[in-house]
């Protein structure tokens, strides 16, 4: 029998606000344990949460970018459970009335587009962290670090619309692209600022009824998400084939074995006893607020792709590559505005620049070759001052020194020779030296033309204008 996997993702996005969601403490990563805490995020008796409206703004951004409806009134709820890293014994989240509802995103599937539904986006606070082992003052004990407690999260919940691990990854990457693009999350999966749980079930192909699902918790890289889902699909199919039944449970992915294992079953599932948090008033978002956030939204990748192909005449493929991240797209656009040649800039950004970035591991916003420098370089090619080949040399030098391309060309004497007299002189010299090959060429071995071009370019140290070389060589050889 054939099986159809059904997958839904719950993505946790840590927001880049300066302060926490319900108090004024800093959200900076990596500070001394418990140095960024106050009565509120420590859950001391008598402390009360006060909502940080920046979080709502970020949530509205995410909602608008994923085609959600923004709820005019949403409420906070308490999710009750005991854990030492959860100071109040409950997490403030949203349950029945979240801030964003009913959105969607299109993902690329086998060359076509597939629409994935987004059930909801809600705001919540993160928990602290347990630290085990060698802690000062505690031998072989466990400590609680509450710096992360009360940092803001969005949970983006998809509909069970995904049908394979690849679709799940495509969707996850899309969300990752959007939240980093919006500047509301740094997207760092290793540090846990972007993490996801996957709900996976399988059903006989063609069936309309979903199978029982298992939830796989907190997987921290795209690769592992794919592995975890693939393994889980396989496990469930094997189980059914062997006459077993899938049970509803929470499973953990083990990156070492590439497998998932049971964490807790349905019977041990928490009853979170959600109820509206009486310490917080309902969050009311009027139209003006939504409109203001909408007007401040950056152009999103999809819109940019359309505009790049239209305005700069580049292929859709190029536009997609160039919009992989917002800084890259902005780099491209800045450069093209200065230079005007969309395709040439695209080739350079996708080619030399990407290569250099990959080689050095630098991020594009710290790239030594600024869009202006690259545009200058391309101008030198367009004006015939240097050849494309020489330009690569100049690019490498710019990367090293950050110098103006014109200056590099001048200092290293790299100006293209477009003087036909000078080129003819070189050609004459080469043809005289290579008389044998000339004879062969003239007797019909026209393949040798490339050889002559190479010799001339070499003799000119690459500076001869290639088009002129071609033209003059052809003329001389056919004389």
């Amino acid at each position, binding site marked *: 029998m054939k099986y159809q996997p059904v997958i839904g993702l719950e993505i946790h996005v840590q927001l880049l606000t300066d302060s926490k969601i319900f108090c004024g403490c800093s959200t900076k990563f990596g500070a001394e344990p418990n140095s960024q805490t106050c*009565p509120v995020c420590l859950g001391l008796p008598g402390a*009360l949460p006060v909502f940080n409206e920046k979080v709502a703004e970020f949530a509205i951004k995410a909602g608008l970018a994923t085609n959600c409806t923004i709820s005019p009134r949403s409420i906070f709820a308490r999710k*009750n459970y005991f854990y*030492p890293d959860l*100071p109040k*014994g409950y997490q403030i989240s949203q349950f029945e009335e979240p801030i964003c509802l009913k959105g969607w995103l299109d993902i690329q599937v086998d060359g076509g587009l597939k629409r994935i539904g987004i059930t909801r986006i809600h705001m919540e606070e993160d928990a602290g962290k347990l630290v085990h082992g060698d802690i000062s003052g505690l031998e072989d004990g466990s400590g609680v670090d509450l710096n992360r407690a009360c940092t803001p999260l969005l949970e983006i919940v998809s509909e069970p619309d995904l049908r394979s691990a690849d679709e799940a990854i495509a969707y996850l990457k899309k969300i990752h692209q959007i939240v980093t693009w919006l500047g509301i999350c740094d997207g760092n999966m290793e540090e846990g600022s972007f993490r996801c749980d996957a709900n996976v079930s399988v059903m006989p192909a063609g069936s309309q009824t979903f199978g029982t699902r298992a939830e796989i918790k907190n997987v921290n890289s795209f690769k592992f998400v794919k592995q975890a889902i693939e393994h889980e699909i396989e496990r469930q199919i094997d189980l059914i084939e062997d006459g077993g039944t899938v049970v509803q449970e929470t499973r953990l992915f083990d990156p070492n074995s590439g497998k998932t294992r049971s964490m807790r079953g349905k019977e041990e599932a928490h009853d979170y006893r959600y109820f509206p948090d009486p310490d917080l008033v309902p969050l009311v978002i009027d139209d003006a607020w939504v409109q203001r956030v909408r007007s401040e939204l950056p152009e999103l990748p999809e819109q940019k792709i359309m505009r790049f192909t239209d305005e700069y005449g580049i292929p859709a493929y190029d536009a997609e590559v160039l919009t992989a991240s917002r800084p890259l797209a902005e780099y491209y656009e800045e450069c093209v505005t200065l230079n005007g040649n969309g395709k040439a800039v695209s080739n350079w950004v996708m080619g030399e620049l990407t290569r250099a970035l990959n080689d050095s591991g630098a991020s594009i916003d710290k790239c030594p070759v600024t869009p202006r420098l690259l545009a200058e370089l391309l101008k030198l090619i367009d004006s015939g001052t240097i050849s494309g080949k020489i330009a690569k040399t100049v690019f490498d030098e710019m990367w090293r020194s950050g110098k103006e391309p014109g200056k590099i060309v001048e200092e290293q004497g790299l100006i293209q020779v477009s003087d036909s007299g000078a080129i003819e002189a070189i050609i004459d010299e080469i043809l005289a030296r290579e008389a044998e090959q000339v004879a062969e060429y003239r007797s019909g071995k026209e393949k040798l033309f490339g050889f002559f071009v190479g010799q001339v370019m070499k003799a000119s140290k690459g500076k001869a204008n290639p088009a002129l070389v071609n033209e003059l060589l052809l003329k001389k050889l056919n004389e």
Partner: protein
Amino acid sequence: MPMEIFDLTIHELHDKLESKEVSSVEATRAMLARIEATDPKIGSFITVTKEQALADAEVADRCIADGKTGMLTGIPLALKDIFLTEGVRTTCGSRILHNFIPPYSATSWEKLKGQGAVLLGKLNQDEFAMGSSNESSCFGPSRNPWNTECIPGGSSGGSAAAVAARQATATLGTDTGGSIRQPASHCGCVGLKPTYGRVSRYGVIAYASSLDQVGPLTRDVTDCAVILGAIAGHDPKDSTSVDAPVPDYKAALTGNIKGLRIGLPKEYFIEGLDPDVQKTMAQAIETYRKLGADFVDISLPHTDFAVATYYLIATAEASSNLARYDGVRFGHRSPQADGLIDMMTKSRSEGFGLEVKRRIMIGTYALSSGYYDAYYVKAQKVRTLIMHDFIRAFEEVDVILTPVAPTPAFKIGEKINDPLQMYLSDIFTIPVNLAGTCAIALPAGFSANGLPIGLQLIGKPFNEETILRAAHAFEQATDWHNRKAEL
């Protein structure tokens, strides 16, 4: 009999401080001596902050010498042990917080302190404010100064007893279902539960967040107005505190209530009401008639459901509010625990008393999956109906007059094993908390065996002025508030 310093009200002591007849240090010493002399009998204090009080009084005296004074400069006050006080142990009457020294103070105390008030100490209460008799305190009950075999009421029992025993010029309490008004009534003092949102809850240990409200317990209505004026107002640290202007409550005490429309809800004057309470109410109505008030018979039809509704909403919120007492970061941690879950379980089992455990269990049940709609959601719907009862009633009347409690103070131990009977002692106060509006309790008479009986005036939301004015007019026309418990 000459007036002792400890017998003075805030406004009387304030005048003597202003005129330099008495210094704050003298007044504070007098109160501390009074506490020392009477508290073995009453048990209203959990912690007496003697040195801090004298140091604060010295600072106040310097302010007085410099002519920089307000109504509260140098006035010795005490707080229910539910208010966080920086550096001063705050137990909430519970073993689980027996060693808790908070790193910050409640906004309401900050405000009083900022106006020069002196802190005498922290007052006994029912554990986590859960109780109507002060018997659930892990420090043992405080006693009624009018008859030390009786309960002072609860949960702010210590706050009421301390005022009645003249151990503090005034005190603060909290009221979730009657916890200020019922003990005020039992001890013969004035107690006000302000409108929900009128006073900040920041730094007040939460019992039921949607019901808890801070308020004063005082000798007379003027003092009540003074304290309310000092603690009311928006607090950016409490999202549920309301940003509405704070009127001059003292100025509202004009003595004139001619034409005031007072509602008498038929559901509050039921058969089985204690005859002394009944008689006291009848006298009070007569007094108000003479003062020129008009009476209107009204109905608050959902009154019967109030106690059940309260014990679902309050316990549900409490079950969550008290989850933070897990032995991890502060408070009692069981020394004989084996592992994490055992540590949390044992710390809570050892730290919480019987009544607190009972309410956590009821609340947990009410929020549980499968029961949530039937209990919590239903209770919220009934709460809305009760709120509407009051909205409709206030279309016809300015103030509603009721008894505070169905009986005068009962004997210690009398109801401790019968939680339902205990819960019913708040039957007339609970609806006000559910509706979120304000109400005041004031002395209105005595039972045949000499126990105080209070009268409750319920006002429109954020209209504390009207109930204060009506209470003040009654006080002017009677002398119940001048009677003193002999100790």
